[in-house]
């Protein structure tokens, strides 16, 4: 399935998917927040990968079942029921949920009457917990044709995530990668040696892979880029910044 027309892109399923190994890491909870965010954005577009994730989580459940039970403190259940009683005083069962990070934040995306689920510039939900809408962002100029917004400058596990907005026809320098770098397209397209990437497509690059992405549609390509290490001027962002900050 190829995206023939930019406006048709949202109706298409992604072509580029996270590896099984990456989905295991996501489901096991061993990925940092930025990388997990990139995977979650892809998952929002991709029923196939959601099915794989369900299998990974089922695997987690089976592993949990298999663990030799650790003895609890003697009053463990009583203590828990006690806390439950205190919590229930103002009965509001659905309050403390964190299952849907989006619930607490109203979507600022403009709903279009009659249009199918999402407006063109609508953000995938996992991202809405971090940015209200793409229109509200203040983009910072990074290089000719490239702007960015820092999402997670440095997460607790050492990773980072940012949004890049790349003007049509802009080619990023040929570069290799130090660690794991995930790029997921939010709108527009880019292409590299491995193919063409549209909304929801995820490029997973690690180790010594080389690639040279080019924004190749007639409008800006906006993507989320997450890395597993602080930016040490090795990945895409580093190479971009190098000429400009003299490193």
């Amino acid at each position, binding site marked *: 399935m190829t995206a023939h027309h930019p406006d048709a892109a949202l109706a298409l399923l992604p072509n580029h998917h996270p590896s099984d190994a990456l989905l295991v890491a996501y489901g096991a909870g061993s990925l940092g927040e930025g990388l997990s965010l990139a995977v979650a954005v892809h998952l929002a577009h991709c029923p196939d990968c959601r099915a794989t994730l369900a299998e990974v989580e089922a695997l987690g459940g089976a*592993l949990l079942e298999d663990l030799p039970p650790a003895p609890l403190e003697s009053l463990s259940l009583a203590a828990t029921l006690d806390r439950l009683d205190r919590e229930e005083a103002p009965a509001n069962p659905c309050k403390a949920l964190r299952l849907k990070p989006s619930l607490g934040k109203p979507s600022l995306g403009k709903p279009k009457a009659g249009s199918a689920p999402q407006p063109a510039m609508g953000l995938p939900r996992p991202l809405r917990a971090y940015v209200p809408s793409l229109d509200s962002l203040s983009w910072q100029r990074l290089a000719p044709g490239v702007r960015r917004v820092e999402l997670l400058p440095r997460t607790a596990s050492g990773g980072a995530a940012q949004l890049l907005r790349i003007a049509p026809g802009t080619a990023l320098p040929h570069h290799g990668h130090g660690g794991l770098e995930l790029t997921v397209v939010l709108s527009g397209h880019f292409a590299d040696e491995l193919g063409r990437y549209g909304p929801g497509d995820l490029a997973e690059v690690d180790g010594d892979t080389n690639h040279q992405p080019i924004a190749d549609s007639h409008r800006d390509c906006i993507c989320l880029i997450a890395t597993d290490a602080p930016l040490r001027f090795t990945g895409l962002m580093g190479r971009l910044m190098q000429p400009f900050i003299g490193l």
Partner: protein
Amino acid sequence: MIAPLATLLTHAAGADRAKAGLAARGCDDPAAARLSADLVAVAAGDRQAFARLFAHFAPRVKAYMLKLGMPAQRAEDLAQDTMLSVWRKAQLYDPSKAEAATWVFTIARNLRIDVLRRERHPEVSDDELLEHEDDRPPADELLDGDRRARRLRGALAALTPEQAEVVRLSFFADLAHPAIAERLDVPLGTVKSRLRLAMAKIRKALGDDDR
């Protein structure tokens, strides 16, 4: 606590549904279905069902936290926190989509990430899938819960020791793939291919190997 009639009915319906399911399947391993029915009952406020779930899951969640390197007291607290979350979120549990153990695992995992790393685990819930119809039959039509559970255990048992090792390190050591590679002294690509092969076995066991 006196449950209102409606919730009692819901509970009864859940239990009946589970029993009917068991009878229909002639199931020899009712554990998964019983836990699932208890979780449905907890959504309706059934404390006895909660106590049973607690007895089953809390010691396992504690073991999970201990495995991930938490001190005993912290692991105990997190096991209790996980079970409190189970109580609060039980209404969101859909027995046709996941086993009870799967669901409890995801809650424990998210809590662990929250506490251990002070990070969030960004997720997508089912109603958030963008613009694509999922025409796949729901999980319960592919395989019912108990058969899924048993097949999954079979597949776990059938992993090679090397595959099982990377799977366990992924779930229980909070290690990224390069760190796993380093610990096992194998190339990164080997870690990833072992995980891929392990997932292929899991997928096949769950009867979803046409992808």
